[in-house]
């Protein structure tokens, strides 16, 4: 009986460890980079949204201040309009746009009368700048 004492050698040669290492490092780096870029994009979007919300409510604050001024200027005996108001009988109509940013504005139409203020339009107007024509798109924030 002959016993084979020949030493058994590994099927994988020198360098298999380096190949595993390259793949492991590659996967780790790719996923870490993706996680960071995704989180940063998410944060940038949050900041952008926060800025727009801040600008929108700043426009509503301007509108509210204007309404206060218009109501203060109004009197039942002699109706007077503040800047762009139009006197229509015993009430004054205001058609105002308060800028939110360079691409949109808050469009408000309201009447000031002895009974108070009545809004007919309160919407966001977006200025669409196309290659051929410039138009407007509106989003109703509130409908009477």
């Amino acid at each position, binding site marked *: 009986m002959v016993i084979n004492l020949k030493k058994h050698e590994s099927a994988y040669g020198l360098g298999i460890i380096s190949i595993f290492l390259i793949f492991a*490092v590659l996967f780790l780096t790719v996923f870490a980079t993706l996680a960071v870029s995704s989180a940063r994009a998410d944060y940038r979007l949050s900041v952008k949204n926060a800025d727009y919300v801040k600008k929108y409510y700043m426009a509503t604050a301007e509108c*509210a201040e204007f309404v206060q001024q218009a109501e203060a200027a109004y009197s039942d005996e002699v109706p007077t309009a503040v800047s762009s108001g139009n006197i229509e009988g015993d009430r004054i109509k205001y058609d105002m746009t308060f800028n939110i940013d360079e691409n949109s504005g808050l469009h408000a139409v309201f009447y000031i009368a002895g009974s108070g203020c009545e809004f007919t339009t309160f919407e966001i107007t977006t200025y669409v700048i196309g290659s051929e024509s410039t138009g407007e798109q509106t989003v109703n924030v509130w409908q009477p």
Partner: protein
Amino acid sequence: MSDTGRKSSLIMIELMSAMLIFSICCAICVGLYVEADRESKNSARLTQAVFLAQNAAELLNGDYEKNLTSVLNMKATDNVYTAQYDENWQPTSETGHYVLIITVDAQKGIADILVTEIGTEVYRISAGIINLNGGNV
């Protein structure tokens, strides 16, 4: 040195250098994951603060005093309304991690809405107090 011995020492050197490179890369990647986690938490915090401030700003339309106290359970002191929130943005009666503070200026028709985290400002807006169904304030 025999051929087998030389091969073993080469594998050992390769293994050790691989472990070293892997450790360095792991340390860098852990740093990147920590950075991603921090950015993600900042983003979530800002989004929640914006949501809360926006919600409060919308409640200013109409009878704001009633809206703020009944819907957001805010406590009123003169013209300042406050509400406390815990770490998970849930309302709490105790001193909260996050605080919503609304300062109303009825004469000007505007309100200052501030969200803080342990005294530090997270988000702040100025909003108009407009009653769309009948004037403002």
